[in-house]
């Protein structure tokens, strides 16, 4: 019996629909390392003209709309820079007195943030720079206001940043003045705030205190502003407190970022030799 053409077409439409649904659902359960390779391949081939187009648009927007702001920032920095030689000299002298080594200079790569339309934009960001510009995974990403996140993967011309709003983000932090240490993580209830977890019960942090990266862990250098303390959000009786922190930088609003490059010779691989390579 021959089927009417409409029914046959309806069936083929349904087959295509179900096939696409299964493929999309399957992709969600593939390990992120593999899907990132696929995404990187697509970005560097089919989507290369689109990334290029968006990069030009972001540059044009930055150069046009933010010119006044950048001029104001440049003037403030120029004023600040006038006091720098004296401070540097004083710092070097004090370091010599304390027998400390020279401070490691930070190098950086400026990047445009290519925002996407997805509702999850802000948890991860696409940057306009990649390995060709010296960007590598685990390099910190900052804006003039403070910490944005860390590079999770980098391909030749673009890189993906895991921002502080991402559920998997963690950073070691301390309060201004170096008094209290804790771990910064996104707030459980809302992705717009952060939490400073693991603060010893004996320590109290007043609202408004600035939270900075501690430099522990080898990913984020010490002193990048993370946010300001708003208040206690919960307590584990007699053991530790968790504070709510208002983030210094907003990934969803940022247009321009700096990727901080690891200083040469700062690799920690030598501290953890592979098994079998150790001398007896």
């Amino acid at each position: 019996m021959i089927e009417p053409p409409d029914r046959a077409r309806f069936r083929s439409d349904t087959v295509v629909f179900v096939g696409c649904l299964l493929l999309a659902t399957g992709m969600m359960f593939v390990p992120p390392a593999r899907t990132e390779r696929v995404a990187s391949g697509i970005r560097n081939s089919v989507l290369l003209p689109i990334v290029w187009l968006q990069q030009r648009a972001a540059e044009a927007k930055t150069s046009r709309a933010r010119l006044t702001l950048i001029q104001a920032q440049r003037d403030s920095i120029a004023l600040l820079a006038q006091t720098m030689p004296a401070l540097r000299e004083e710092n070097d002298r004090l370091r010599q007195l304390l027998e400390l080594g020279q401070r490691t200079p930070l190098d950086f790569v400026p990047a445009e943030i290519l925002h996407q339309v997805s509702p999850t934009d802000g948890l991860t960001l696409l940057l306009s720079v990649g390995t060709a510009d010296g960007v590598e995974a685990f390099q910190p990403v900052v804006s003039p206001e403070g910490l944005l996140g860390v590079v999770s993967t980098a391909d030749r011309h673009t890189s993906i940043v895991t921002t502080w709003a991402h559920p998997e983000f963690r950073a070691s932090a301390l309060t201004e003045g170096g008094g209290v240490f804790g771990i910064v993580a996104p707030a459980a209830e809302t992705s717009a705030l952060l939490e400073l977890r693991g603060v010893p019960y004996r320590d109290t942090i007043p609202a408004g205190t600035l939270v900075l990266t501690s430099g522990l862990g080898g990913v984020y250098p010490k002193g990048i502003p993370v946010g300001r303390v708003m208040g206690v959000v919960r307590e584990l009786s007699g053991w530790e407190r968790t504070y709510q922190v208002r983030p210094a930088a907003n990934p969803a609003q940022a247009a321009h970022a700096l990727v901080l490059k690891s200083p040469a010779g700062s690799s920690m691989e030598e501290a953890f030799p592979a098994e079998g390579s150790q001398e007896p």
Partner: protein
Amino acid sequence: MTEPSRSKLALVLLLLLVMQFYVRPRMWDADVAPDFVMLALMVFAMRARPGAAAAAGFLTGLMMDSLGPGRFGAAALANTMVGYMASYGRAVFFADNLLVHAGFIGVGVWVRDVVVLLASGAAGQSLLWQLLVWSPLQGLTTAIAGMVLLVVFRDWLAIRLDA
């Protein structure tokens, strides 16, 4: 679909792609700006069979997943569903009315956001805030952009619009 009307549709879709990746980043706030890729998908779905609309949804979703991976596959899943339902729904339910088309586009954006957010594991206040404030606003701006597009290109898209 005839050959000339296919090329006109392709031109409109290309224009929307340029709007999304060149004009949109220069002009609007990202949270509420019209989503021209979604608009392109809805316009295509209005003209195509459900199977082709689902495949187009899958490809546009894959593109969005590659550009900003929250959870890879979430946008592909959402756009496949929206593309199929838009094409099927238009053939079965919807009248040729400009406001109905606009509402149709707005709801498509909102449904896409619901599926992407749930598939990405979003929860709590941020999920509610996104679904009740930002997504409806983006649906509204996309619907308005869709109305302008349909009025300007109504002959090219061969879509009948009763007042």
